[in-house]
């Protein structure tokens, strides 16, 4: 079952990503991107990361919708609808990309994950997700733990563990990210504020 779902989602994700690369129309690219991201979210669900998946759907897809809007606004008019990229570029990029992919795949396959897992198991004990007594399986109960972790408390690490020192949470990064978002909000608004200064420089 899981395998079937994985196959579906993986194929859709990869195919859509490929379509993004290949298609020349911005809006179609955006469409394919949405598809890819959505199926990636499906993969996340398969990985019992419900919250991440939902966030992926909401934020990424919302963000992509915005991308879409801009793409349409900026390119829907005539000559910019498709900015063709030369096939030479495509070929060369494809070659390099293929090499890269092969290399990454090679690296991935080089690693013996089971042995690693056993080694890590011996050193750190069971992963917090599979530890007995802390059930995160079925229904993927990661949401509450994630919230606690973002608030600085690590149920998943500290509950039922013999630790002198409680594990560190993510309170500070969380705050930093919030501030960062605020800054980005203001900065983007400033950058994109309407100051239409048409420069007839090299634009036909």
């Amino acid at each position, binding site marked *: *079952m899981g395998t079937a779902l994985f196959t579906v989602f993986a194929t859709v994700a990869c195919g859509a990503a490929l379509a993004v690369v290949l298609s020349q*129309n911005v*809006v179609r690219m955006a*469409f394919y991107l949405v598809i890819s991201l959505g199926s990636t979210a499906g993969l996340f669900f398969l990985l019992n990361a419900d919250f991440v998946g939902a966030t992926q759907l909401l934020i990424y897809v919302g963000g992509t*919708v915005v991308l879409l809007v801009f793409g*349409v606004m900026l390119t829907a008019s005539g000559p910019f609808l498709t900015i063709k990229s030369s096939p030479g570029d495509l070929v060369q990029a494809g070659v390099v990309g293929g090499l890269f992919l092969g290399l990454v795949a090679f690296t991935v396959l080089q690693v013996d994950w089971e042995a690693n897992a056993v080694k890590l198991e011996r050193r750190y004990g069971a992963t917090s997700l599979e530890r007995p007594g802390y059930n995160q399986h079925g*229904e993927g109960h990661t949401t509450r733990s994630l919230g*606690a972790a973002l608030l600085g408390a690590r149920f998943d690490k500290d509950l039922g563990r013999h630790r002198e020192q409680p594990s560190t949470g993510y*309170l500070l990064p969380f705050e930093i990210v919030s501030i960062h978002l605020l800054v980005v909000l203001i900065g983007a608004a400033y950058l994109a504020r309407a100051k239409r200064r048409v420069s007839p420089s090299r634009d036909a």
Partner: protein
Amino acid sequence: MMPLLAAETISGYLSKEWELPEVWALVAAAVVHVALLGAFFGLPALVGIWAERKVAGRIQDRLGPTRVGGRFGWLQSVADGLKLIQKEDLWPTAADAMLFRVAPYIVVISSFSAFLFLPFSDTWVAISLDVGLFLALAILSLEVLGIILAGYSSGSKWSLFGGMREAAQMVSYEVPLGITAVIPVMIAGSMNLNEIGSMQSGWFWNWFVFRDPFTLLAFFVFFTVTLASNKRAPFDLAEAESELVGGFHTEYSGMRWSFFFLAEYASMYFVSALAVLLFLGGWWTGLPFIDDFFRTSDSVAMQYLGRVLGFAVLMIKASKLVFLQIWIRWSLPRLRIDQVMTTCLKYLVPISCFLFLGATAWSLFLPGRVLMGTQPGLGGRVADAALVELNESSGSEAAFVAPDAVDVAASSLTFSSKGGE
């Protein structure tokens, strides 16, 4: 018949009773669910369209459809559906054919799959997730994607305008929608719609809308935002018949056109049901003796009837809200797009933020005390959650009592010290 009623989930029933392998059981269950939902999915459209026309007629001092089928014209929608199905499926040459054809499906799929997380009654939910509400909103927000694609791919400026307006409107109205939806989540301490619903049992003053003044206001804000988020008047800028011929669906006809309206009426019903679940006590009648009569009885059938009753209650409540939407549509004039954006960004967002802060403060400073009746607030919830996890993790060490929400971090320290012993 009984074991079917008694079964937790359909797949469980199938695998237990008929010894199906789990995969097939799951597939079959999925099929069943989809069939149920599909059946249910058409219903609001039929009823809604008919009701809309009747209500519009009444409001405009007309009779509305009267001829088709009986004297209330209640077959009108069916007739329309038949006509639409017969129509030829065509698309303009200027259109981007692929997207033009895909767009309605996206809309329908998104608004349909939102129903997967909607509990129609106690435990009557297709997928009960920890992140149910979150996911539901996320998927619902995918609907706009289809609309933009439709508006763009039609290759007509009216459609494009409609799509753009819809995009702007949706992207900005997501914010207050999310914030107001988070308020009940914060109160309940869970995003699982089933839990949220079941938390409002008992007397009707346990409904979140009556919990404190902030939630009361939050409900109305939520309702307004949902109006906007599925382009109901007075926010229906996407299809502004008076300005843009038909908005994003100008170029559509036939079945693809009807998909949009299917989706629209379905999501109308969905957001209403969502509002009911979040604020208006879900499937509970609000009169405990009635509910308890069914729940406490030990016969499976009675409990099943109780769920049916809950289903009916939810339906009625949601229908009331749908009727309210229709009423508003035919009573209020349409806003200008800039007014729409102003309403959202300058008024609704600050208001919802304020309400969120207010509700939080209420929960923090008066934990467990509510406007009417008694109910443990957020603090109690999270404390219970921590307690639950504690008991799960370190079985007998249940002596620990999580004092309050703000102490969760500190409580983790306590865990460790306990573990140290």
